[in-house]
């Protein structure tokens, strides 16, 4: 693509997607009666100051419990939701300051793969219609050729066998491949995959994960992989961010994080993942209860009320610089990493 004044900088070699201080707050109590009686508007801080950078050809894992804001973050990144604060840069260009042309390019180049291939496919559409739709929306030529190529990339081969099928004629794994083909047909540079295998049978999960990993590699895309399960994240992701109540509380290279989690929440999350080893009996949970509503957040560290290691210093809020390895690669928002490591 020729670079004109208005086009995005396709040669940009920094992170393909970079966010700083990203916020998505949802107002609550906005009803008219509430306002008439002078009630204050409170906010659900779904995403509350997230910094993240994703390189080309790399997959970032995002892990946390439901309600931690991970899906909202994914939706904000691909423009499905407007952020309420902070900045999003795609190929080095600030989303807010993009021209109309650039915004159009952005929308074409960021795509999402959803969790549920049963719900996300329109049952009346054939595979062909379903994959053609985004091409029509973006008014792109050579549609037939692109549809065939996307099906082949998604390993639905030969494409002729699939093109006229309807969702009910496909298995769960095939449907997820169709969703992938639809996301890929626009040749995006960045994809968000939100629990893309959690509805699939175990025996087909690996093939979908392997496919996604291969595509990220081959097409040199950046990817955000969202899941609550660290064992799946481990298979997919180069780096991982752990999210709790709207904030990233730990990030680092995935293997390093799985072998030595630092934040007490990451430690608990890892401990809770069941392992296929009968010598490992279910142990007493490290955490009681469930995360609080992200409306009235506690003073200091968000995790303090549930944290088994909380102390006086935790009334002051830790940032990701509270603990860092010397190379800065692995960081945790916790004051007590060393103390807990020595326990």
């Amino acid at each position, binding site marked *: 693509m020729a670079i004109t004044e208005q086009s995005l900088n396709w040669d940009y070699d920094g992170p393909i997607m970079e966010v700083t201080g990203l916020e998505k707050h949802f107002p609550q109590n906005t009803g008219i009666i509430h306002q008439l009686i002078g009630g204050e508007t409170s906010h659900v801080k779904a995403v509350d100051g997230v910094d993240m950078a994703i390189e080309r050809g790399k997959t970032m894992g995002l892990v946390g*419990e*439901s309600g931690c804001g991970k899906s909202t973050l994914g939706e904000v990144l691909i423009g499905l939701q407007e952020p309420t604060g902070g900045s999003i840069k795609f190929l080095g260009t600030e989303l807010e300051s993009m021209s109309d042309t650039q915004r159009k390019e952005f929308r074409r180049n960021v795509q999402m793969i959803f969790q549920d291939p049963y719900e996300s496919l329109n049952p009346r559409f054939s595979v062909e219609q379903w994959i053609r739709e985004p091409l029509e929306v973006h008014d792109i030529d050579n549609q037939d050729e692109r549809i065939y190529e996307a099906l082949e990339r998604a*390993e639905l*081969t030969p494409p002729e066998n699939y093109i006229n099928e309807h969702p009910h004629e496909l*298995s*769960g*794994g*095939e449907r997820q*491949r169709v969703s992938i083909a639809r996301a890929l047909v626009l040749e995006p540079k960045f994809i968000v995959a939100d629990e893309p295998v959690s509805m699939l*049978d*175990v*025996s*087909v*999960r*690996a*093939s979908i*994960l*392997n496919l996604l990993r291969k595509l990220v590699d081959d097409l040199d895309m950046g990817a955000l992989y969202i899941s*609550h*399960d*660290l*064992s*799946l994240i*481990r*298979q997919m992701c180069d780096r991982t961010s752990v999210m709790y109540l709207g904030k990233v509380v730990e990030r680092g290279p995935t*293997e390093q994080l*799985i072998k030595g989690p630092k934040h007490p929440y990451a430690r*608990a*999350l*890892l*401990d*809770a*993942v*069941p*392992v*296929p*080893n*009968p*010598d*490992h*009996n*279910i*142990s*007493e*949970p490290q*955490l*009681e209860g*469930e995360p609080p509503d992200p409306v009235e957040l506690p003073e200091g560290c968000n995790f303090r009320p549930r944290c088994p290691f909380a102390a006086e210093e935790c009334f002051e809020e830790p940032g990701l610089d509270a603990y860092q390895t010397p190379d800065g690669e692995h960081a945790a928002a916790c004051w007590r990493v060393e103390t807990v490591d020595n326990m």
Partner: protein
Amino acid sequence: MTLLEVNDLHVTYAGDPDVEAVRGVSFTLEEGETLGIVGESGCGKTTLAQAIMGALPDNGRITGGEIIFDGQDITHLSNRERREIRWEQMSMISQSAMNSLDPVYRVKDQIKEAIQEHRDASDAESYERARELMELVGLDPDRVEDYPHQLSGGMRQRVIIAMSLALDPDLIIADEPTTALDVIIQEQILYRIKELQRELGNSMVMVTHDISVVAETCDSMVVMYGGELMESGNVDEIFNNAHHPYTLGLQNAFPSVEGEKRDLTSIPGSPPDLSEPLQGCPFASRCPFAAPVCEEEVPVQEPVDGHRVRCHEPVPFEQIRDRSGEDETWLSQNKV
């Protein structure tokens, strides 16, 4: 002592065409033990659980074999007779149960109803029991006053467990009890279930697609595929010494956060159509080791030390074990 014995059980759903969802499954469950039934969607595991519980959908019926519970043949009991056993001696925690609480009644009224349906208990006694049960499953007893919508998904699932314990049943059948929950809540609930089992001494059947849940919570296990049992035995034995290609395929497809990272395999192909009669092994069409005999004859092997493998062993088991860890082995068959 054996609490539950299932012999050559067959279950068929009437329809056009009929679907035989369970095709000759046998196993036993000892008192105080937990048995895992593991398999993928459509393998018949939920149907099997419902048949034991006497809770099959209207078009489902047992077409062969027997279910012996506590020494009594309950295979063909009438609905009324089954209802008496149900909840008092046997109860069920199902996958969607947390959404099956009635939204217009308080938790205490729903637990009370479950108790008074079977026992001659006063309102005051039932109320006390409800509070006691809430505490047992790790919930604040005062929350019996809540309506279901005031509780989180994890709390609702705990209420369902409380209800299943209301009448001290000997057997609890849990069908994917934590599938819809996050890992942290899943761990809390599974841990509570296991603790209660230790305290109360009941037996359990745990139906799940998740072999790691079986590894962590069960004593013995049954691996199902295409309505049939593929392999069964003690959990340690099956995890350390699995023989059947399908069991090995599942194990190698399963990710873990433990140990060194390894590549996962997948099993190309799709499960058999259960409206058709099958001749040989149901897994033969997806099995990379299958020989002609696998398509023609049903494999029958007597269990050795309680370890049952229904496989013709077309290739020696040691070779199957070695080769099943490699993706190429599975991909050599065909593609998904």
